[in-house]
């Protein structure tokens, strides 16, 4: 009978008689979900404004009765409030939780209502399921199976609208399938801030479109595909490639920039088919940039390295590793690490640097334009990982001028390049010739071609690891598919090199690495890889407050005021 607010600021509402504690003003769809009860819906989306037009979320609504004259609550004999139920249904998405509110998500009226709405939605819907990409993750399929009447009474002609429209470079539109929920329009307007989609015509002939001559081409266009509840908006890249029920999803992080969008990577039998965003209300809500979704193409690129080499000739892995270990013991070594490496890899690289007697370590900065949404200026996902692990103690530069100078004056004879192409970072072909290079990489580059030893590593998709984003949030990213036969996880390569230099066993598994991290890095003490929550974990970055980080404001991130 707790109608009043308790100290936690929450109120009680009742869903099918079950008490639910929630914040006042909580949307009923979310409140019911808290109680484990589904209110089916199409147009509602937790990150967009409420539209209230699909009418699928209709529920019964009741409020504690009040005497009309006195305004006093009406009570049963036992003191519990008498609930007066509204005669007609109300939409769940438009109803905000108020103390003592009651809703029914199951009743004869609601069953009838849902059957009615489903029937209307399917009226002009084309029988496209066999050729529609949305099948298997389609709200129309799900809700008609759960709440529909199971048969059609419609014998008229269905409306005809444009199909297979190229809405933009990455999105295909089928207007017949569209149920006019307007999620895509609201997304483009409210989130992507690119008012490019709209409804033309009227009534049942209403059609989604772009203005002639414009396209849906902003860097968030594929989010409309994610939120489209049906197969109206589909990804052109994914079109007809794979049925979704065959796909396995792996939670990962988009390593495109230091925002660290949470993602799902979908695979089947060792191939990636698509990447979609994963919800994280602290980082990226339910969105990610389009540019992050195509990164998986690199996995099958032609210049993958899948064999180790010594002086240009393919060699078995242990031979190559042994040779690399030997070279690292001779002459002065400089290390070029990567802001794209995981925390674990950076930790091992630091250990290796220490083992070689404190090799100077450089990282390569990548700067792009921030879009104020989910792409930051820093295109390295894990500079902060390098800082926390002590791999570096100041922010990297775009060009390795200091290293180049050291090459030129002969103070560096060997370079260990992990996951970076030195050529891109400003080291010239001549300079590359002046030093011996050990390259750990997944793809061929000028560096690997010039390398004395090439150790074939894996792409990020083939490794598990954690990354620290611009918020100093530690997030983990799991292996989605195995790498090619001849390549080895960078962790294993680095651990073996460390072992060769120190003569002791080095941690190679993630668990073992984290034990070592936990005991040496103060900000990460007590953390284990497994304990990192799905939505990540903030760590203390105050030690680096004085560094001039380059990021600007993005969703859920405000740069510190200098």
């Amino acid at each position, binding site marked *: 009978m707790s109608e009043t607010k308790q100290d936690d600021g929450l109120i009680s509402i009742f869903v099918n008689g079950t008490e639910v504690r929630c914040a006042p003003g909580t949307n009923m769809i979310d409140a019911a979900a808290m109680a484990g009860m589904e209110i089916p819906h199409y147009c509602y989306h937790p990150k967009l404004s409420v539209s209230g037009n699909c009418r699928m979320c209709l529920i019964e609504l009741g409020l504690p009765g009040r005497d009309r004259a006195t305004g006093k609550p009406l009570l049963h004999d036992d003191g519990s409030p008498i609930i007066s139920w509204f005669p007609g249904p109300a939409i769940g998405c438009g109803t905000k939780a108020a103390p003592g509110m009651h809703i029914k998500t199951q009743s004869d009226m609601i069953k009838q209502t849902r059957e009615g709405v489903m029937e209307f939605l399917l009226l002009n819907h084309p029988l496209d399921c066999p050729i529609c990409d949305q099948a298997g993750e389609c709200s129309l399929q799900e809700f008609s199976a759960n709440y529909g009447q199971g048969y059609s009474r419609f*014998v*008229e002609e269905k409306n005809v609208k444009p199909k297979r429209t190229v809405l933009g470079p990455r999105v295909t539109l089928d207007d017949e399938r569209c149920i006019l929920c307007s999620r895509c329009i609201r997304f483009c307007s409210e989130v992507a801030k690119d008012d490019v989609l709209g*409804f033309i015509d009227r009534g049942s002939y209403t059609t989604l479109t772009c203005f002639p001559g414009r396209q849906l081409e902003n860097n968030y266009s594929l989010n409309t595909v994610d939120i489209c509840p049906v197969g109206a908006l589909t990804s052109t890249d994914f079109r007809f490639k794979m049925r979704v029920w065959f796909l396995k999803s792996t939670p990962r992080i988009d390593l495109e920039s230091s925002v660290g969008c949470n993602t799902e990577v979908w695979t089947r039998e060792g191939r990636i088919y698509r990447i979609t965003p994963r919800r994280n209300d602290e980082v990226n809500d339910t969105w990610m940039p389009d540019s992050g979704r195509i990164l998986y193409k690199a996995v099958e690129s032609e210049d993958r390295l899948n064999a180790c080499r010594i002086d240009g000739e393919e060699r078995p892995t242990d031979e190559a590793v042994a040779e690399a270990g030997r070279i690292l013991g001779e002459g002065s070594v400089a290390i070029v690490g990567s802001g794209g490496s995981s925390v674990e890899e950076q930790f091992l690289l630091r250990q290796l640097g220490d083992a070689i007697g404190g090799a100077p370590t450089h990282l390569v900065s990548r700067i792009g334009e921030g879009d104020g949404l989910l792409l930051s200026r820093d295109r390295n996902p894990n500079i902060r990982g390098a800082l926390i692990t002590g791999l570096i103690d100041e922010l990297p530069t775009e060009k390795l001028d200091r290293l180049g100078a050291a090459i030129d004056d002969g103070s560096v004879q060997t370079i260990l390049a992990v996951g970076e192409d030195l050529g891109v970072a400003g080291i010239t072909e001549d300079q590359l010739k002046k030093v011996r290079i050990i390259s750990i990489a997944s793809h061929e580059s000028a560096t690997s071609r010039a390398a004395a030893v090439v150790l074939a590593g894996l792409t990020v998709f083939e490794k598990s690891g954690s990354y620290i984003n611009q918020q100093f949030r530690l997030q983990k990213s799991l292996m989605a598919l195995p790498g090619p036969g001849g390549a080895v996880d960078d962790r294993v390569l680095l651990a073996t090199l460390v072992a060769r230099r120190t003569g002791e066993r080095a941690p190679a598994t993630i668990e073992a690495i984290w034990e070592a991290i936990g005991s040496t890095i103060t900000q990460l003490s007590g953390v284990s890889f497994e304990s990192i929550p799905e939505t990540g974990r903030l760590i203390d970055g105050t030690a680096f407050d004085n560094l001039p980080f380059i990021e600007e404001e993005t969703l859920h991130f405000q740069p510190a005021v200098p």
Partner: protein
Amino acid sequence: MAVTEHRILLKYADEPDYSVDIDCYLEKGGYETLKKALTMKPEDIRVEVKNSGLRGRGGAGFPCGVKWHDLVDRKSGKPIYLICNGDESEPGTFKDRQLIHKDPHQLIEGMMISSFANDVQLAFIYIREEMPLGARILEKAIEEAREKGLLGDNIQGSGYSCDIIVHRGAGAYICGEETGLIESLEGKRAYPRMKPPFFPAALGLYNCPTIVNNVETLCNVVHILKMGAEEYTRIGRPKNAGTRIWCVSGHVRKPGYYEVGAVTMGEMLHDLCGGPLPGRQFKAIVPGGGSMKILRADERFKGKDADGNEIEYGLEDIPLDFDGIMAAGSMSGSGGMMVMDDSVDILEALANLTAFYAHESCGQCTPCREGSLWASKITARMCSGDARPGDLDTLYSMVGNIGGRTVCPMGFSTTWPVQSYIDKFRDEIEERARENRCGMGRDERLIQK
């Protein structure tokens, strides 16, 4: 004694030498009431209108004074707007057309008084596109009033300023729905808003408190203030005060608009409209515009008399006002009465109306968007000679999922006609559907070939 009109709003409208010029209006004492209003306190005017019992003449019959006095949010600090809903589009209704085209200054005076009473500085007249001459008449009338210091800045030196903008629609019935109108006035598609929270009195035009009133309602305000609320309540019946301009069309000898006090359906149909066409009999009445439930001419109703005894009465006894028609199971709506006689094929009449509502559905929400067009397709098919078993059951039950499940009341515009026509004329419609005839071989076809 045959009943006659009681002309207050239309007193001068049809007189041969009455024109729309301001001089004509002034000659008849026009704008004196505005001048009187400017000496009163706005709140007092609101109370006067509330006491008069004036109910909205646009369709819902909501008490105007209650809207003004109790519902408008005066605490938000946001500007308050007044919108005159001149988008008269409900089939059967044509009263606002008369007021706009024949006595525009009455409307303007009504708007100015209403604006003053509600602290409104900017008012709008949303007029449908199909009345282009009306729009010009209104614009000219506004300029005339401005020239005479009865509108615009510092009206009559009172310090009160208010302007009126005439805003033309472009052919959408849904702009007659107050929130659809507001959306259109904001420059968007006329998609009605969710209520709650978007009650115009709180969150209307530009999310500011907004009063939307019908043309006839606003014209009534002049007369309420002129004669006083008490006198006004004596016209009509209790809780149904004032005159109403009824619009009668269809199969009567004298279709047209009639301003009356308390009359019965029979008095309207016979005394004022001259009864049925020669050789014909009344068959059905749609009392308040196309959306409303139909009544059979031979229908019997149960009610209570003044002493509380149960009585039975017929169509012609129905008091022609809000409560009278509601007691008979329909609504007086916009006051647009459509009369059908025994030459009419009820199914075709239904097909005509469902086609109208399907065409006008804005398409925002699922039930009305899909259901109205479906109802139209079924009825058209049934009229074309291709009716199938189960059509009526499907139609009847399907439309039950529209009304009450939609964003705005337009859902009922499909539900009520379909269900009431089938309820009241089931035998005829079933026979029609069964025999699969095209038309009943009578004179008028009511749908496109």
